[in-house]
């Protein structure tokens, strides 16, 4: 069972954190050493992957056109789904990154008696994917209250909006719960839909379970096993100023949380999570559809590949061409009698 493998991996990671947090030196490892390592691996790995993509050229302009192209003046171009300028292509990528344009097109096909095929609108994946990513963004930005001193300006309004319900002694942030709900949806859909279960690998379940565990541990340490947030902030700000120290009064759940985040950071560059970078580098999306307007260069274009030459063609067919009144470059009398064999030798040269 592929989902079981992923589940076991996440449970094992949690256990490791629980144990490490309670052995001597374990908290220093979890709270100081690993975060530094993780961020180095994350950034290094991310850059490595992007650079490795960038080392391969884009030989052809293979835009997938998803709307009317730039054409005649009286035909209206779809400038975002089929951009013909760099600015348009940037807009298209932004639409993809910020609003998940392509997922918004999603349909669900079904086969009925007849046969009849039907394609219903299906925007759940789009909705929950969007909810997941934006709640994650809000959570990350909100965490800046723990990493910046004095607290950076955008945190307060963000916290205010995120916590507008003002429920609970420690105010509930919506983003945390939306994240859990969205991750649960994305996870369950993999289990429930047969075709998704069939294509899903452990590497698909693992990040979802890991994110769920991270979100849950975060919520738990805020609302259930409350931890000393001042002590945590002293540690996290200490990490950013390279003077980290751990007060011994931080709860264990915090160490589970930070350990799982470190695992996520380390896992990121070596996994499908690199779609975060890939979405910007996909040639079918980030190129303007102006292939006939501006010549695209292929660095490995092989100039030695030539067509079968017209001369060789005429040599092979001169007789019948003249017979059919087709113009020829060389008259029959001038040309040496040619055999097909000779023609193909000629051809081999080209």
């Amino acid at each position, binding site marked *: 069972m592929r989902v079981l493998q992923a589940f076991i991996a996440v449970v094992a990671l949690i256990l490791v954190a629980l144990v490490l947090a309670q052995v001597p030196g374990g908290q220093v490892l979890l709270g100081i050493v690993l975060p530094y390592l993780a961020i180095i691996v994350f950034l290094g790995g991310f850059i490595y992957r992007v650079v490795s993509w960038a080392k391969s050229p*884009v030989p052809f302009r293979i835009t997938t056109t998803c709307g009317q192209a730039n054409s005649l003046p009286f035909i209206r171009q779809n400038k975002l789904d089929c951009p013909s300028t760099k600015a348009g292509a940037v807009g298209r990528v932004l639409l993809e990154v910020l609003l998940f344009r392509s997922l918004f097109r999603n*349909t669900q096909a079904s086969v009925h008696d007849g046969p009849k*095929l039907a394609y219903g609108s299906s925007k759940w994946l789009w909705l929950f994917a969007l909810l997941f990513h934006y709640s994650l963004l809000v959570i990350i930005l909100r965490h800046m209250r723990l990493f910046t001193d004095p607290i950076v300006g955008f945190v307060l309004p963000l916290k205010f909006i995120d916590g507008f319900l003002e429920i609970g002694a420690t105010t509930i942030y919506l983003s945390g719960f939306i994240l859990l709900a969205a991750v649960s949806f994305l996870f369950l859909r993999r289990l429930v839909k047969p075709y998704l279960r*069939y294509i899903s690998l452990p590497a698909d379940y693992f990040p979802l379970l890991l994110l769920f565990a991270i979100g849950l541990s975060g919520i738990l340490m805020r609302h259930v096993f409350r931890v000393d947030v001042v002590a945590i902030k002293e540690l996290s700000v200490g990490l950013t100023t390279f003077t980290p120290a751990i007060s011994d009064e931080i709860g264990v759940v915090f160490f589970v949380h930070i350990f799982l985040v470190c695992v996520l950071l380390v896992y990121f560059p070596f996994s499908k999570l690199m779609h975060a970078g*890939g979405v910007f580098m*996909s040639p079918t999306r980030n190129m303007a559809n102006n*292939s*006939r307007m501006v010549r*695209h260069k292929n660095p490995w274009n092989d100039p030695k590949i030539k067509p079968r030459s017209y001369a060789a063609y005429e040599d092979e067919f001169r007789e019948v061409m003249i017979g059919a009144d087709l113009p020829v470059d060389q008259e029959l009398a001038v040309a040496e009698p040619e055999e097909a064999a000779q023609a193909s030798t000629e051809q081999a040269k080209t």
Partner: protein
Amino acid sequence: MADTKVAEMKAKVVTEPSLITGAVPTGNWWEVEAIFKPGNYCYPAKKSIVEYHRKNLSGIFGEPRDWDVESDDWQLPENWQEIIIDGIKERLDKFRSLKVFMDCCVRCGACADKCHFFLGTGDPKNMPVLRAELLRSVYRNNFTLAGKILGEIAGARPMTFKVLKEWFMYYYQCTECRRCSVFCPYGIDAAEITMMGRELLHLVGVNTNWILEPAANSNRTGNHLGLQPHTFKENAEFLLDDIEEATGVRLQSLSFNRKGAEHLFVIPSADVFADPGIFTFMGYLLIFDHIGLDYTISTYASEGGNFGLFTNNQLMKKLNAKIYAEAKRLGVKWILGGECGHMWRVVHQYMDTMNGPADFLEQPKSSITGTVFTNAASTKMVHINEFTADLIYHNKLKIDKSRNDHRVVTYHDSCNPARGMGLLDEPRYLLNSVCNNFYEMPENTIREKTFCCGSGTGLNTNEIMDLRMRAGLPRANAVGYVANRHGVNMLSCICALDRATLLALNQYWNPEVEVCGVSELVGNALIMEGEKEREMDLRFAPLTGVEG
């Protein structure tokens, strides 16, 4: 015709257990073996054909040999695995698309039910995501850290004969139509994966005859059927007789290989010899004659359709290079292209890059309307639909719409012009200008979401008829929908492959619907100078009002 009777097929696609009909597969997909049996694979290329290609392009076509797809010995070279792995490495270094697409798929499943092959067969490996995983699993095994360490847990598997069989089966059950790419949040394009898969298969001599033989013909004779120049010319001129019979006008403007013409006109060669492409060809000629265009057709570069696209980028380049070479030799100003899907994929997205710059040509400008085609400023090749739409917009064509009144028309967006070019509204503009009865198919089956005919990329061969009828089902179904609802009896399209394959598809699924090119309808509606009173269309079918 297909082996399975249509009534049986109608039941099968709904009831037989498959992933699309609700059956739940168990086990792991990589444990399911690809089993070849008659009807589910294309025949391998003849030895002589492979020898021919190897002579022209060395090192990319594998060993010429006779081999049996159904047997377990494909007579592969001893080091075939090494060749494949090296081939992957080379392509990762050459194509950013491949690298990014290998790395960033999240298996969200958005592409799964977008593929016409999946919809028609219910075979899980026809989901674009799994089609890519067939290659991706090998990529992980040899090129990623996780794959090397974790193996199967990371979704990695070594390159085995089993995998190779899967590749041959499923990279020839993809028509590179790019529909999946429209829905993918990262634009991952199964067409790119399939192209790479086929290139790799060619390296070890695993290939199909229906692609390599037409490619060889195109290279040698200039058309994929291997017609010699005189036959090609005769065929085309024979159509002038038909035009005369239908319209009473003898066209004078058709010429071949004529130096000094303003335009080289490149068509898919099937338009000269295959029904119903020939009617489209008549349409082109009528339009050109109507406006007195100075053009010529080349017998040497008479195949716009590029079978190289279905093999590897080298052969694609070699076949395509004829167009610029001939334009240069004839000294034309710029090039016009007929209605052809993959020809235009190549012209629009590859030609200039591979065989340009076309600095010996002029920026295309219509000699009739003065319109400058800025969108073709560099490639200098204009699509006939763009050209004709501009003519109609400037009232340069005398049109009698009623001549198409006996046709209730719908329009099939051919995949490549739709998703590889963005040519969506020009054909519609034409249809609305020349037809009184034009109806769109349902919105999820047209424009950028159009369904493939099911037999593109060299799969329109008779030995896989059942498969083709299944793959074409989504398209046929949408046609059937408008046929029932609006009485549609004519499916127009702008692709030569479509004209051949949709014909077979409709004969199977919607026998009441015929197939035509858009230019046929334009040509049929033209009021030609000196014409007789029209009673028949270009197919000699009676016009509305003269049936009696």
